[in-house]
């Protein structure tokens, strides 16, 4: 059984994890293990980002950090943890400039200035990007190159961290599953940074990659940390619905709207956002929570499109303008039979981002000594609703901070002693023996996504939430008897079982927090409590319950 000894274990190698690794070494860490269940720098959410990265660079306006913070806090509907939001806005320009030094290639105007566009909810043109729709791949590739040049960073792909290990309440390491060999790996570590992203894969309709199942939240709960704001799942309002596109991210219409406006239409071809208090007049200004609300209500009222969404039209935009803004993308759309000058496409809300996450302070430390979180996995900065453009700076800023502070923590510690965790290690070998059973993990993962979509989606009510919690607990009780195909090497049944175990606890955390919050605010809309209640202007925490479930504290 492989045994690894390191100073800092980073779980997840997207934007936050890679930046954390670079920062930890810059702050003196001598041994960093950067582990990803997928391939380093290729899985997760960063690589999927299409366009906007918000930072008060003031390249195109009189912007400053306080204005960015005011917009972020305003969008958060009273729930942003302000010190975290302030850290995000303060550090974002330095991180964006550093990425430029590392040759990420932000788009520039003819004047040479970095181009910045105005995204919904921002009071200034603040969002930079890499053309065309290439922000995420460019950021990921830039960080991948940097990380590969640092000998102190050991990269391991296809390693799933299944359990964190504590000794006397402090982080001592982790147990991992080497997916290739199907064997347990022990990792002694002074500090752990969770950079696993969010939980949008828990929803049937999502823009998530396969790695966004909330496993970092399950790890943190298991180690004794608290989660915050778990009920706030952002639904991206205009996810692609029809006609079917392949090889293109379903949130691709966001950049189209930044550059070209576009019009949201009901089945009669009429603009409807004004009915919900948001008259766009050809621009793209409606915040995500309000747009999701409006679209869902239009569909419920029978004014939706054939596939259950609404129409998004660019028919009023001249072909030359489309081609100037998106060149090669227009050609790719044509190959799918889509001509935006001739017909609208159908869009509907899809799970896109999770505002909640691991409760941390501005050093990214959780309440468990040695346990840090970064990126989407950390909760609080975005409150009840995230501004578009704040996710990539969050990954870079919080990654940088987590790496720095984890390195400082680890520097003062003796080498971690591996406290033998026989249970977590033995479980992997036992599962690999295989098991007969009535149901398998992939089946239950599908059911989980349906339960979450139907009962814990953008609109919730006590009845559905109660049913969801009960069903999630039944599924968790079934974990010990699920069918598992036998075998070690590349046995997908092992990864499925661990994914389901983590997904169930993450899903339960969302559902219990949503059930508890008896009001509507931002991304959390209760049909049975449609008003915002000033008494609820506070953050909810979730911890592991005595019976192994998730409970609001």
């Amino acid at each position: 059984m492989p045994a690894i000894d390191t100073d800092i274990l980073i779980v997840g190698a997207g934007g936050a994890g890679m930046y954390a690794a670079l920062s930890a070494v810059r702050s003196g860490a001598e041994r960093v293990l950067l582990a990803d269940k997928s391939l380093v720098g290729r899985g997760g959410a960063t690589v999927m980002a299409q366009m906007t990265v918000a930072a008060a660079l003031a390249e195109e306006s009189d912007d400053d950090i306080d204005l960015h913070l005011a917009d972020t806090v305003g969008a958060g509907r009273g729930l942003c943890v302000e010190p975290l939001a302030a850290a995000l806005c303060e550090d974002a320009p330095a991180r964006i400039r550093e990425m430029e030094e590392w040759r990420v290639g932000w788009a520039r105007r003819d004047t040479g200035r970095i181009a910045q566009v105005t995204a919904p909810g921002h009071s200034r043109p603040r969002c930079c990007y890499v053309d065309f729709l290439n922000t995420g791949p460019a950021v990921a590739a830039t960080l991948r190159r940097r990380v590969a040049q640092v000998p102190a960073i050991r990269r391991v792909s296809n390693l799933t961290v299944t359990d964190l290990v504590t000794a006397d309440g402090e982080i001592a390491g982790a147990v991992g599953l080497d997916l290739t060999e199907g064997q347990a790996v022990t990792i002694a570590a002074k500090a752990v940074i969770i950079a696993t992203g969010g939980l949008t894969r828990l929803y049937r309709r999502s823009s998530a990659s396969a790695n966004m199942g909330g496993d970092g939240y399950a790890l943190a709960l298991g180690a004794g940390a608290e989660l915050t704001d778990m009920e706030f799942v952002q639904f991206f309002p205009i996810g692609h619905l029809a006609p079917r596109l392949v090889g293109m991210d379903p949130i691709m219409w966001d950049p189209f709207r930044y550059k070209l406006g576009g019009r949201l239409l009901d089945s009669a071809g009429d603009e409807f956002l004004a009915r919900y208090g948001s008259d766009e007049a050809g621009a793209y200004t409606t915040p995500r929570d309000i747009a999701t609300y409006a679209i869902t209500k239009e569909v419920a009222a029978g004014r939706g499109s054939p596939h259950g969404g609404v129409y998004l039209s660019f028919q009023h935009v001249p072909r030359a303008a489309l081609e100037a803004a998106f060149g090669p993308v227009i050609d790719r759309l044509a190959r799918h039979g889509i001509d935006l000058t001739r017909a609208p496409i159908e869009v509907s809300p899809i799970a896109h981002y999770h505002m909640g996450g691991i409760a941390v302070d501005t050093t990214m430390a959780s309440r468990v000594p040695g346990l840090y979180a970064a990126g989407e996995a950390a909760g609080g900065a975005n409150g009840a609703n995230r501004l578009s453009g704040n996710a990539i700076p969050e990954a870079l800023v919080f990654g940088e901070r987590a790496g720095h502070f984890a390195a400082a923590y680890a520097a003062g510690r003796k080498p971690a002693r591996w406290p033998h965790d026989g249970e977590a290690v033995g479980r992997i070998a036992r599962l690999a023996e295989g098991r007969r059973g009535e149901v398998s993990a992939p089946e239950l993962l599908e059911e989980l996504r349906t339960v979450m979509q139907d009962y814990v989606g953008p609109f919730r009510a006590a009845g559905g939430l109660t049913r969801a919690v009960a069903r999630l607990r039944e599924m968790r009780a079934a974990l010990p008897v699920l069918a598992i195909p036998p075998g070690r090497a590349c046995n997908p049944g092992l990864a499925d079982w661990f994914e389901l175990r983590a997904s169930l606890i993450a899903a339960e955390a969302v559902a219990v927090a949503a059930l508890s919050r008896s009001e509507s605010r931002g991304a959390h809309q209760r049909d049975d409590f449609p008003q915002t209640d000033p008494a609820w202007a506070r953050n909810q925490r979730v911890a592991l319950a005595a019976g192994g479930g998730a409970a609001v504290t």
Partner: protein
Amino acid sequence: MTTLTAHLSVRRGTADNPPRYDEFAVPFEDGATVLDALMWVRARLDPSLAIRYSCINANVCKECTIAVDGRVAYACTTRLKAGAVMVLEPLPGKPVLRDLVSDTRPPRERL
């Protein structure tokens, strides 16, 4: 109403064993991809089928590269065909780990 079906012939097994081909019949939907079909098989017919993927629909991770009817292709962007049998095999030129998964990890990212 007739339901269209797509047929997959999938190479199975590890490097140590002689390969075999398993046939799967999958409901066909207009616009569906080979990866959609493989995920459907894993959830309903055979959870032991190994296939690597990450981004699912954006074609940015490139992890689902396999051979479709002998040609290198992404499972996530290859459209499913109704009627004909599609032969799915792991990426040629890389060590096979299991089923459709070959070892594409950079050497410096291995344990």
